[in-house]
């Protein structure tokens, strides 16, 4: 771990909170329900330790993954455990409860749309606050074991560093019937620009 980076963790948590707050407001609006979030965790994690931090890596999850480039680069990820993903799709399609058991193409595009809204509002908040240019790529969808999703999405362009910065929040609504995780893996190399802009 790199101690000099640790001093920035509070600032990063703050940024995470603002971004996530914005995203969750958008989600609540979309679903017309009250959505809660936990206080974001921000931490520097060596790549070999990611699975220990995330936990539950063999569990099936639906994930929307989006690469972000520009002044700030990294990988944004929303993941929902299978049951929660099904619940979310059921609600958004206004299907009878229990009628959707698998995530088909329709379900996929619904979840991608949700992911889009969340990542879009997260990034808007961050770029508004920092005046940094952030360019999101096309979001991607996958349904698999959580660990495989995470390791593969970190492999994208540029994400070859030994340590990643992870900002993570749990999102939940209606007594955890709808809940998921939001994670932003920053490329540590791009953090300098962010700190400079924030005057840190």
């Amino acid at each position: 771990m790199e101690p000099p980076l640790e001093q920035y963790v509070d600032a990063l948590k703050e940024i995470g909170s603002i971004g996530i707050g914005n995203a969750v407001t958008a989600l609540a609006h979309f679903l017309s329900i009250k959505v809660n979030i936990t206080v974001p965790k921000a931490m520097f994690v060596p790549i070999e330790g990611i699975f220990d931090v995330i936990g539950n890596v063999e569990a099936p999850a639906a994930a929307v993954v989006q690469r972000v480039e520009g002044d700030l680069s990294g990988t944004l990820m929303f993941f929902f455990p299978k049951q929660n993903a099904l619940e979310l799709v059921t609600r958004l399609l206004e299907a009878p409860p229990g009628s959707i058991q698998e995530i088909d193409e329709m379900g996929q595009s619904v979840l991608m749309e949700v992911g889009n809204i969340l990542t879009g509002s997260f990034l808007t908040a961050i770029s508004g606050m920092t005046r940094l240019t952030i360019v999101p790529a096309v979001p991607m969808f996958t349904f698999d074991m959580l660990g495989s999703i995470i390791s593969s999405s970190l492999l994208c362009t540029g994400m070859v560093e030994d340590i990643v910065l992870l900002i993570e929040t749990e999102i939940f609504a209606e007594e955890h019937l709808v809940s998921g995780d939001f994670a932003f893996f920053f490329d540590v190399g791009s953090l300098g620009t962010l700190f400079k802009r924030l005057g840190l």
Partner: protein
Amino acid sequence: MFETARKLGLNGVLEIQVGIAEFKVGREPLVIVTLGLGSCVGVTLYDPYNRVGGLLHVMLPRVADFTKGVSKPTKFADLGIPILLKEVLKMGADRRFLEAKIAGGAQMFTGADNKFQLNIGERNVEAVRETLKALAIKIVAEDVGGSRGRTMMLHTVTGRVVLKMLGSQVKEI
């Protein structure tokens, strides 16, 4: 800070876990496990006579393809496999008997973003094959490609490699 996860498996055999870009070696009766192989590739080297083996979780193909990130050589197929080899030999394996098994290299995502994907899974598999060939180690079994993630387990008593995938039966290679 991040302790290697150690636990006793179902039959009381010690299991050790290998993180991303890490490797572990050991002798029987140990089970070496890596979770979350998506486009990453798991490489096992095993000596059936001395019952010594190791497992490496490769993330990227060749160090020369990247401008940064050399600080952790076990991320790369071309640098990591020779390190794994050195360590299993140190543990008592005999090079003449070493067999390799590989799994992973999936294409996980649906979506149109080619820049993101870069066929990294395929390139990882290819780099692993070439590196093993250059070291004159035979690949005796493999389960690569596709679109699903895998969990890979090496049983050092038998050399069996067990693979778990979502929505399919446990598979042995």
